[in-house]
């Protein structure tokens, strides 16, 4: 297992390097100039020249790339063009807000979606199953920007129950976390329902019931453990996606997270910030996949890595 993990980390580093290289060149060859975007229309050519030199954009592309790689090896990913601070610092300043919101949304999705899916499967075709299926369909179909606006108008403007934006109090988390968790709730509900239905039909579950094992143990220990193999990949994937932030939710609720940061940085062509974000995304995806593999081995004793 140790050898496998070391091998995976080495591959992950290679993937991060390749992705960063691709992003570095593709972004710069896109045609838009960060200096032109940043400066006001009445800025002079001198302003433009000064800023171009400050950002190091006056050098050739290979020279810029060499400087980038050389500095990145030392943990320096450059200064944000917009904030004049290290890109890593800019990202880390926004990361806690995103992680807190992402974790809240994930907990909500996990605690609501999976139990509903399990109950729906166990009580198939009951009213709770029907409600669960309708909720799942709605959660998958409704776009988050629309849900967000409706939540704001209803709970914020009409009822005045919840604050619309900000991240100071637990109340501030309710609407954005719900909005963000809507799709994962639906996904978890559907997946856990179908996985549990398959598991409940299997011979070992029938055998357990014949042996007289209490129904709760049959469901939780026998059926759910096997159904969770299907769920693990999706759950970790969703967890990764949620802690990477959501551009739409963060924009609508003015949440100061990295989703909004990366969108603003993209439109402002703030190369260093976008690059560090891409690196972070790649890192999270790689880590989540690694975790999925490790958890597989724990859940299913038949799986062994060499």
């Amino acid at each position, binding site marked *: 297992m140790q050898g496998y993990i070391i091998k995976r980390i080495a591959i992950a580093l290679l993937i991060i390097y390749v992705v960063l290289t691709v992003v570095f060149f593709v972004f710069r060859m896109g045609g838009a100039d960060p200096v032109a975007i940043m*400066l006001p229309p*009445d800025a*002079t050519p001198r302003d433009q020249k000064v800023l171009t030199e*400050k950002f190091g954009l006056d050098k050739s592309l290979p020279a810029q790339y060499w400087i980038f790689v050389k500095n990145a090896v030392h943990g320096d990913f450059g200064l944000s063009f917009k904030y*004049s601070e290290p890109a890593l610092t800019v990202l880390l300043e926004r990361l806690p807000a995103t992680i807190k919101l992402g974790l809240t949304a994930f907990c909500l999705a996990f605690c609501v979606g999976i139990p509903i899916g399990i109950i729906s499967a166990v009580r198939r075709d009951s009213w709770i199953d029907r409600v669960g299926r309708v909720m799942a369909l709605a959660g998958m179909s409704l776009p988050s920007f629309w849900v967000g606006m409706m939540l704001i108008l209803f709970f914020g403007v009409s009822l005045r129950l919840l604050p619309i*934006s900000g*991240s*100071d109090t*637990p109340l501030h988390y309710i609407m954005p976390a719900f909005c963000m968790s809507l799709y994962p709730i639906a996904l978890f509900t559907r997946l856990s329902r179908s996985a549990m239905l398959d598991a409940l039909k299997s011979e070992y579950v029938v055998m357990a019931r014949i042996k007289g094992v209490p129904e709760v143990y049959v469901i939780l220990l026998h059926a759910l453990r096997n159904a969770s193999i299907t769920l693990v990949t999706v759950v970790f994937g969703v967890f990764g996606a949620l802690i990477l932030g959501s551009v739409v939710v963060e924009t609508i609720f003015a949440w100061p997270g990295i989703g909004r940061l990366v969108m603003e940085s993209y439109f402002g062509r703030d190369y260093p910030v976008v690059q560090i974000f891409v690196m972070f995304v790649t890192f999270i995806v790689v880590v989540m996949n690694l975790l999925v593999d490790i958890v597989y081995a724990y859940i299913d004793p038949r799986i062994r890595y060499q």
Partner: protein
Amino acid sequence: MSKRIICRVLVLLLGVVLAIPAVVAYASRNDTVRVGLRFDPATLNMLEMKTGFEIPVILTMNEPLLGSDPVTGDRIFSALAESMQVMPNKKDIKIKIRKGARFQTGDPLTAADVKWTYEQCVNPKNANMMAGPLDEIESIEVLDDQTLIFRFFEPYAGWKELMWIGICSKKYYDSVGPEKFRKNPVGSGMFKFVARKVGESVTVTLDPDYWGYSYLKKEFNIDKPNFKNVQFVIIPDDQTRIAMLETGELDIVSDILPHQVKQLQKNKRVKIKRIDKVPSLYGISHKPYADPIMKDQYFCYAIKHAINRQEIVDKVFLGEGYPLYLYASKTELGYDPKIKFDFNPQKAKEYLKKSSYKPGYPIMLTYGSDVPNASLVAAAIQQYLQNIGITVKLRQLEAGTMATYSRTKDPRIGPLLLFAWHGGRDPSTRLMLSMKSNSPYSAWPDRPHKKEMDDLIDAQARELDEKKRAGLLAKYHGMWMENPSSTSLFGLNMIYATSDRVEYNWAPQEAFIFNLHLVKIVK
């Protein structure tokens, strides 16, 4: 105790725990004026200011030499400057700093600080957006702690537009270094920096020891504000900003779009205001380098007479604007309301007939994603031009790409470009940068009468007498209209709204929120 009672107690406790921070946050809001901003300021450091979006925040902390008259919007002395005098050679401006002026650190604000601030703004390492315009200044001489002279290379009519820079403390910069200076800005203004949550808010608080209260009371009858803090809240989404104003989470919101007014009017706790004396200009820029047809004066006249500007204002912007015919916004010196290109399709067709345009030849109209209602305006223009026989193709470009094409004179931008620009008060920088034949952004360097027009641009920039200058500008605009290089469309009113707990009036002639010290909490 039964399980039910335990559950109820737990739920109650949870409710209290959730409610306490909300109550605390609400209570602290009573002495805070909350202003909604669309963009997060790139920096709070005056010396490194990159865009105009930072101005409202920075100028609450860093006092400039000249402020803005709350009634007329004219440049007036801030508390800082006691006098300004144009010297007989017309090139030098002598400025006297008020005695007793001091920074929030307690250190006196001297002429040396003013000189240092201006020098830092042109220092290439700070990449300040004002570096270019400040190039007009040859040197700054400090005579004593209260007196300094700005020496210009030549007489410069737009000198007042260089005097709004917030003054910073050299001593503080030297003692804390650039990093801390950037994170904890210090000025001599009425408000002190408190905290910044990147991407979320910037909070400033009233400085009880602000040195200029008595002066403001004496000269302008301005009282000390009756609130403690100003919080600038960054809300990128227009609809969310409006919703927050409705719920009272924000007190002041600007740049409200006309179609949002109806929604706000239903809310009795919101006061909607509008002002037309603000810089605003929508137009179509002609790009002869993308297509030589744009050099054809008859073709350009045809465009100007083909578009019903008033109809666009009425239907797309619900009447919240006014037609513009000159490339100068309503607040710019030289703006002339008498100049008009009437909407006359017949006349437009006659001009088109005289032009070199071949029917069916497609003309590209490009518009950006940053112009409000751009797609509707572009579609309307397409229809007007097609009505007189010009085939127009529309193309939307992402704002960043459009800015780059425009700045680099890339022909891919197309011959017609729909733009929105707030413009300003003084035309000099605009004319010098985009209209002079040898200027870097000139779209038409070989235009007819270029020598005479260049001379007029230079002459107006050097003319300190406002009446004479207006005459030169009128002459210039007359020549420009013979071969127009743009089609101005309209300007828009600034629609802003406040919650009913505050009273605030927009500073005329300003494109951004100014004079926040004049806000009054009335409820």
